[in-house]
């Protein structure tokens, strides 16, 4: 019996959307307020969905302690209260939430082995969300 399990995590970070090879006017035209040179921040919510059969002995798809442990170490500690634009991960790339979503998917996909990864969904604000399923 395959079940999908979704857990939500929260972190706060700043970013600036800016292309170094474009003029200031072009950057403002593309990114608007998000191009503010001083950056700006969001409270991001990350929803990670994993799936698998429910273990008969534990009743679980995967132990939440494992998922929480991995997420705290690999996601929260890495991104919380950081400036995404300064991270080596986004060197030469604009840290849009689309890209953040793909990067976070890849982190789970490479490192989390306790259940099958289905999806990563990120809410940048209550109005904007992004999903990546690989």
């Amino acid at each position, binding site marked *: *019996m395959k*079940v999908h*399990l979704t*857990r*939500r995590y929260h972190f706060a970070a700043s970013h600036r959307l800016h292309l170094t090879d474009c003029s200031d006017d072009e950057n403002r035209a593309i990114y608007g307020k998000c191009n503010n040179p001083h950056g700006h921040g969001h409270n991001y919510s990350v929803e990670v969905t994993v799936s698998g059969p*429910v273990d008969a002995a534990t*009743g679980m798809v995967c132990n939440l302690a494992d998922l929480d442990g991995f997420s705290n170490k690999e996601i929260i500690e890495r991104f919380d209260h950081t400036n995404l634009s300064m991270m080596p991960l986004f060197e030469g790339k604009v840290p849009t939430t689309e890209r953040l979503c793909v990067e976070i998917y890849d982190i789970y996909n490479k490192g989390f082995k306790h259940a099958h990864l289905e999806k990563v969904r990120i809410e940048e604000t209550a109005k904007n969300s992004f999903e990546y399923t690989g």
Partner: protein
Amino acid sequence: MIYLTRKAEFAASHYYHNPAFTPEENQRVFGKCANMNGHGHNYVLEVTVKGEVNDRTGFVVDLKELKDIMNREVVDAMDHRHLNKEVPEFAKAIPTTENIAIVAWKRLAPHMKVAKLHRVRVYENADLFADYYGEE
């Protein structure tokens, strides 16, 4: 094909314990949830059905009927109950969010006549939910 989702809430208590495990194993696997005095949650049940829109009524399903089935089969059985002790399915299965979704599906599916059950989602809290789509 259209999908329709209806929500209901129930509050219940539970604990996680596998009698085949040693006390240490229960503690290690289930952590705080192993406390045999139990603890509780405000669960949210989301039932999604799918089907064709009826030409005459404009409905995919009679909402009143869906609400009655959800109340009778799941909410009345689990609201303000101790899941381990008062819901027969959890005499053996551990009442995790995953298993609650499966049990809710099995209780609801036989009563779905016009529309078909598509998904049962159970929220244990705003940051955790399980989805069951039946045997795919």
